[in-house]
């Protein structure tokens, strides 16, 4: 750390601003220096197991073993070498970032100003420094190339750079020889060939190989396009060393090979990087137990500092997004919660694909000292599995393996996860600590539910921030939107990669590649690799324009597509010296044709596209006096409709390919230089929903029409012929008087009206209009089905008339229901008829009472006279006599009761003690 600071002599404010990054860097430094210090005491004192093995078991030493042996030593040597060379820019700055500090420092020292620290965002990628063409002086004993004469040992450090040590007949070999000697001298004859001969052979073979290699190398160098730039032999050599690795290397995608391994190599926007890092550092308190550095004065100093360093940065973005930046900074400054966690437990990165979101998350997590656990769309993300994985990642820790670092969960492609999984994530975020505040009984109760609260950072990555499932998460997450990568940075990186791979590419063409791929890093590099794989050694803008590979399956959105279709491309001025071709749609007819076709193909939503075209084409400003193009367009539309029908009906999806030609036709028919005003196509959807509501109204109406009428009408005849007239018929002229005062003819009319309405299942319902007035509406709302805008309104009944009709209808309905009920129980009906026919309405009750009385008497008799068989005849006689005797009072009582309309009967356990049959008819 000290060393670091000395080297850097960074200004205070800088230190302040980038404290977290520096922390991260310093931390790495510490770790690796620890590693280094362990190595320092030399192989004798502190040797690894392998070294032990090597020493203890004297085997015929091969070059490889020796190499391994020498690694540690050489590292030190190399280090010293580097420090010696530190003034000269000799460091082979690999794209693959060196991870050891020894390597790191020199490159740092090479750039002495903090502006070059790659944080400013402008000077960005360190141009690969040119190495002096000659190898290191021989006196150093460390060679950058394998020596042509004599044996050597190649030494690779952990970052992959390789140096060569000249092999001398020194102690190492002596030891080996001394050990070997007894063996050979013992003449045991274990070896068929004496070891010395074998060694000679081996040496010769090795020499041969080296010569071959060097020849090949020189050839390669000669053929290398860029004379100044020398390919790092180290890589080549390494590849030569083991063929398997070579294969692996070449088969690997460049995207992986040249992916950043270090924070400073990230291509993404610096502000974003910094924010994420800061957020992650907020976790330090809880994860690592480190106290957060208190920077009380920081926020006050912030504003001037920002101003002071921004000009240096020369980054156009910060000024524009200043307010947003401030907001984000504030978020990051917010206090930790009660568990010393940051306020936002989860960071949500969003942005279009290929900007390096996943890379950023991985690198930052690694730099902040975490072990990365990733869940992405390739994993099962059903709720249970997701829960399990989150728990595993956040609460456990790997015990096996060397890295005992805490986990950092990265959930990639979260926008595709089901809502259930996201809810689980939210639940995890909001978990409260049960052991802290709550009482013991409660914890016991909730023991099952209670889990420890989230103590690990979670980073989520998505393309589309506004997926509905993410909505709850959005509120709780630290949102970081990825801006576009700067094309200059990307082009620079691309240039480096192409140089490394021996491709010749000028900045202009690389810029055009960037533009073509919308600054998608992945797509750019893949395209480069593709070109390389096909043998292109030179990339110029023409090739870039011609290939269709780099083009993403871009999903530009429908409005963009419609706009492209309806707008003639502007003629772009050719940019001088840049080698830009014209914009893709601006050329001749064929080019435009291709362009529109491509766009239409890639959008995929042919249905929506054609709807949009249909809705907008008539409002385009096109001179079309004879309506020829309109006719043609409509012919095309009806063709595509037919096509669609065939596709869907016959499931003949191979015909789908003809659908996008519709867009091309519209482009050639209606494209205009003006910027078109395009509206989103709603009308078809609106029409469909209105059609559905109309149909529903008709269906409800039809559903309850009695069968005898229902069978005569169908939905079609109802709409076409009947409904309008029917609605006229049910609006007769009614005198605004009480229906009781109607004349007989009017009553008849009323009756018919109500009959009709009931037959056709229409009724009036009182409704409150939004203005607060009451109105009677026709119940199945069929009025809407037949009324058209702009036609003279039909005659409507007055409110009063409707009210009258409504009331009459209710009565009629009740009457009918009662009738129906009577029909269903004919007994009641019979009684009813009797009652109507009979002059005395009380007879019923009388009869019933008599029955009751009779029953009781009959029932009580046998009970009383049950005892003994001998007495049986006697009581019978007695019974008859008593029966006749008793009858009179009972009857008289019955009539007494039955004389009144109301009668009482006690039913045990029942509450309807008082009852009387009342019919609706009597009330109406």
């Amino acid at each position: 750390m000290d060393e670091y600071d000395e080297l850097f002599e960074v200004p205070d404010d800088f230190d302040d601003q980038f404290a977290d990054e520096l922390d991260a860097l310093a931390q790495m430094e510490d770790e690796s220096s620890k590693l280094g210090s362990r190595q320092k005491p030399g192989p004798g004192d502190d040797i690894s197991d392998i070294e032990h093995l090597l020493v203890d078991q004297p085997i015929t030493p091969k070059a490889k073993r020796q190499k391994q042996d020498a690694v540690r030593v050489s590292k030190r040597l190399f280090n010293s070498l580097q420090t010696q060379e530190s003034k000269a820019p000799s460091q082979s700055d690999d794209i693959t970032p060196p991870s050891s500090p020894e390597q790191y420092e020199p490159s740092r020292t090479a750039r002495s100003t903090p502006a070059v620290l790659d944080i400013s965002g402008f000077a960005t990628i360190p141009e690969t420094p040119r190495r002096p063409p000659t190898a290191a002086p021989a006196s150093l004993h460390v060679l950058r190339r394998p020596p042509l004469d004599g044996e050597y040992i190649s030494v690779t450090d952990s970052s992959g750079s390789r140096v060569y040590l000249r092999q001398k007949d020194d102690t190492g070999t002596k030891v080996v020889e001394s050990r070997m000697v007894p063996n050979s001298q013992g003449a045991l004859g274990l070896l068929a060939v004496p070891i010395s001969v074998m060694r000679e052979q081996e040496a010769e073979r090795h020499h041969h190989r080296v010569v071959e290699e060097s020849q090949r190398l020189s050839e390669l160098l000669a053929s290398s396009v860029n004379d100044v730039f020398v390919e790092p032999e180290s890589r080549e050599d390494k590849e030569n060393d083991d063929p398997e690795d070579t294969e692996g290397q070449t088969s690997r995608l460049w995207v992986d090979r040249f992916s950043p391994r270090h924070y400073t190599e990230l291509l993404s926007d610096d502000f974003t990087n910094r924010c994420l890092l800061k957020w992650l550092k907020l976790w330090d308190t809880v994860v690592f137990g480190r106290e957060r550095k208190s920077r009380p004065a920081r926020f006050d100093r912030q504003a001037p500092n920002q101003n002071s360093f921004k000009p240096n940065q020369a980054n156009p973005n910060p000024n524009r997004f200043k307010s947003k930046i401030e907001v984000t900074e504030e978020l990051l400054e917010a206090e930790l919660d009660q568990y010393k966690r940051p306020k936002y437990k989860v960071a949500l990165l969003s942005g279009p694909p290929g900007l390096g979101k996943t890379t950023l998350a991985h690198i930052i997590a690694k730099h902040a000292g975490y072990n990365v656990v990733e869940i992405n769309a390739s994993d099962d993300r059903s709720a249970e599995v997701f829960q399990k994985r989150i728990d595993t990642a956040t609460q456990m820790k790997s015990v096996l393996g060397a890295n005992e670092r805490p986990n950092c969960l990265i959930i990639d492609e979260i926008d595709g996860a089901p809502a259930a999984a996201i809810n689980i994530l939210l639940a995890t975020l909001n978990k409260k600590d049960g052991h802290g505040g709550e009482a013991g009984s409660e914890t016991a109760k909730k023991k099952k539910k209670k889990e420890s609260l989230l103590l690990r950072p979670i980073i989520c990555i998505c393309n589309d921030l506004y997926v509905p499932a993410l909505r709850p998460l959005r509120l709780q997450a630290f949102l970081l939107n990825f801006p576009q990568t700067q094309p200059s940075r990307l082009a620079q990186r691309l240039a480096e990669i192409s140089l490394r791979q021996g491709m010749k590419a000028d900045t202009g063409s690389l810029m055009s590649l960037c533009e073509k791929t919308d600054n998608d890093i992945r797509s750019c590099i893949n395209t480069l690799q593709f070109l390389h794989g096909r043998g292109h050694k030179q990339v110029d803008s023409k090739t870039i324009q011609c290939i269709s590979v780099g083009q993403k399956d871009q999903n530009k959105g429908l409005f963009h597509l419609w706009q492209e279709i309806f707008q003639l491309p502007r003629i772009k001025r050719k940019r001088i010296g840049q080698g830009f071709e014209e914009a893709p749609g601006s050329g001749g007819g064929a080019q435009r044709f291709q362009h529109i076709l491509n766009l239409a193909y890639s959008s995929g939503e042919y249905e929506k596209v054609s709807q949009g075209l249909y809705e907008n084409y008539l409002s385009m400003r096109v001179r079309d006096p004879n309506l020829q193009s309109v006719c043609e367009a409509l012919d095309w539309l009806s063709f595509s409709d037919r096509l669609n029908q065939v596709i869907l009906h016959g499931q003949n999806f191979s015909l789908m390919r003809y659908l996008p030609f519709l867009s091309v036709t519209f482009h050639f028919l209606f494209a205009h230089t003006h910027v078109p005003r395009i509206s989103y196509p709603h009308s078809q959807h609106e029409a469909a929903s209105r059609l559905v509501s109309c149909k529903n109204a008709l269906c409800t109406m039809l559903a309850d029409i009695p069968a005898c009428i229902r069978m005569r009408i169908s939905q079609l005849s109802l709409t076409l012929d009947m409904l309008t007239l029917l609605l006229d018929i049910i609006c007769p002229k009614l005198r605004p008087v009480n229906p009781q005062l109607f004349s007989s003819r009017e009553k008849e009319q009323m009756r018919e009206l109500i009959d009709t309405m009931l037959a056709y299942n229409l009724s009036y319902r009182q409704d409150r209009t939004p203005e607060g007035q009451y109105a009677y509406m026709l119940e199945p709302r069929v009025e809407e089905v037949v009324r058209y805008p702009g036609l003279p309104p039909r005659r409507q009944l007055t409110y009063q008339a409707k009210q009258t009709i409504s009331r009459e209808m209710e009565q009629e309905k009740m009457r009918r229901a009662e009738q129906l009920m009577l029909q269903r129980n004919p007994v009641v009906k019979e009684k009813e008829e009797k009652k109507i026919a009979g002059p005395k309405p009380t007879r019923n009750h009388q009869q019933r009472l008599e029955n009751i009385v009779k029953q009781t008497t009959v029932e009580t008799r046998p009970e009383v006279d049950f005892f003994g068989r001998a007495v049986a005849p006697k009581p019978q006689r007695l019974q008859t006599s008593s029966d006749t005797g008793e009858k009179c009072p009972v009857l008289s009582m019955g009539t007494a009761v039955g004389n009144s309309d109301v009668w009482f009967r006690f039913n045990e356990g029942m509450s309807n003690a008082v009852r009387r049959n009342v019919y609706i008819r009597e009330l109406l």
Partner: protein
Amino acid sequence: MSLWLDKYRPTSLGKLDYHKEQATQLKNLVQCGDFPHLLVYGPSGAGKKTRIMCLLRELYGAGVEKLRIEHQTIVAPSKKKIEINTIASNYHLEVNPSDAGNQDRVVIQELIKTVAQSQQIQSSTQREFKVVLLTEVDRLTKDAQHALRRTMEKYMGTCRLILCSTSTSKVIGPIRSRCLAIRVPLPSTEEVCNVLTSVCKKEGLLLPPELAKQISEKSGRNLRKALLMCEACRVQQYPFSADQDVPVTDWEVYLRETANAIVSQQSPQRLLEVRARLYELLTHCIPPDVIMKGLVTELLSNCDGQLKTEVAHMAAYYEHRLQLGSKAIYHLEAFTAKFMAIYKKFMEDGLDAMMF
């Protein structure tokens, strides 16, 4: 049963008001106690259904008029539930399979087969077959019609089908050949007038013959419409006057106005307005072919004789496409635009000829 339409509907073949010859033929057909499958077709409002019900009554007696509505749920092979209403008596079953939309094939297969497969018990006292009445056969999909073919032959013993449609053009040949086709043409104007007068007489009203004629013309000889119009007139104003204006259906008025709009101006803007009106018609459940037909009729009456053949040709062309496609609005608009183009060219040519 209070609409005149329902009140005075003839219930037996003998009481039919017109096409009496056909009625006697039907009577003779039923007399022998059996008949083949029937395909009754004719324009709407001609009295197809009335005739069929009369026929059934002749066949089975008054029991046919005891109707009940049954809600049936059929599960399609795709586990989709289809709900359909049937109207049934003890002797017959009436289904409108096109209510099920695309799934009408399933309805045909399941529903009709179950009816057809069940034997009538007590065949000594009853007819040994039931009748299945399918309405709106012309709106059946081809699949459903093919499903019907074999059923018709196989279950001839237990079931007779009566198909009811407005035209035979959409009924596939195999079905047409399996049925006895009975065409029910529209009544003539006089016949409509007679019916109207007799109904009014029964109601105790006096209908001036001029008004009767006017109504029958306005209704397009559609008897259902004519009766409703007559009743609407009665509601409007009782002591009928000869020159009373007869209420007409709104959609026809709207369609006429649309046609006038097309003729009066031809421009993309007008086309947009027409599109809105066409949408309006479509959303009010007016079938697109009816719109097309109405539009052509109106346009033809408005344009010059020279153009008529061409317009009719275009109409046929786009109507065909309309039937093939699924988005009616495209085809309707295409026809409109084509008409506009033709009409405009014709007018301009005419103007040029006038000038020189």
